């Protein structure tokens, strides 16, 4: 069963539940693209991105899932 974009009971911290998937063929630069974003998220205040992303740290895990932890 497909999930809907927002669960009905979700409230203020919806953005923390957001899942983004990066797709493409081998060698297209997916991982580099994510790493570049990780570097920006780690080293910059992202004023335009969202309030929820401020003061967060992004780590690339072994499971190929990058998570932002508050």
């Amino acid at each position, binding site marked *: 069963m*497909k*999930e*809907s*974009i*927002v669960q*009905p009971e979700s409230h203020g911290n*919806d*953005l*923390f539940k*957001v*899942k*983004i*998937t*990066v*797709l*493409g*063929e*081998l*060698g*297209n*630069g*997916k*991982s*580099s*693209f*994510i*790493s*570049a*974003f990780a570097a*920006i998220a780690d080293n*910059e205040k*992202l004023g*335009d*991105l*969202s309030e*929820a*992303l401020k003061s967060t740290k*992004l780590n690339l895990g072994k499971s*190929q*899932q*990058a*998570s*932002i932890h508050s």
Partner: protein
Amino acid sequence: MSIWDTAGQEKYRSMNRNFYAGSHGVILCFDLTKHVEESDVMDWVNEIDNNIDKECFRMIIGTKCDAVLPTSTTSDTLKNICAVLSISYLETSALTGKNVKETFDMLVAEIERRQEDYKLRCASSVLYNRNNSVVSLADGVYTSDASGPNKAAKSGTCC
């Protein structure tokens, strides 16, 4: 927010469906330094459309824009398809950082907008309570209407 980096090999394509099902946003990457056929792009778009929620925000990005040759037609191919399908398109470079932040800005803004729309749709809808009377959520105040389901059916139900 979680970002899932999927395997690119063809043999893992079916496995990736499990990852992007339930996503709020999907970024489809194409290498601007390689030749891309329109059919390749359409295959990916159809593959995504068949496996994601209709509310999911799709986006196509061209990667390695710092290394594109002047004779490359990949950029034009992607732009044309995105224009036809109304899909957002950006050209990015992980090397220079061009449009990397902008991609996520756009993605998050659109996801937030869709979440707000969803909440508004729910708030302006009507629900039934256990007594089968209409409960209006429009003003954040429960107002009971004992006229039953027929009247509510005309007003529409939540999602």
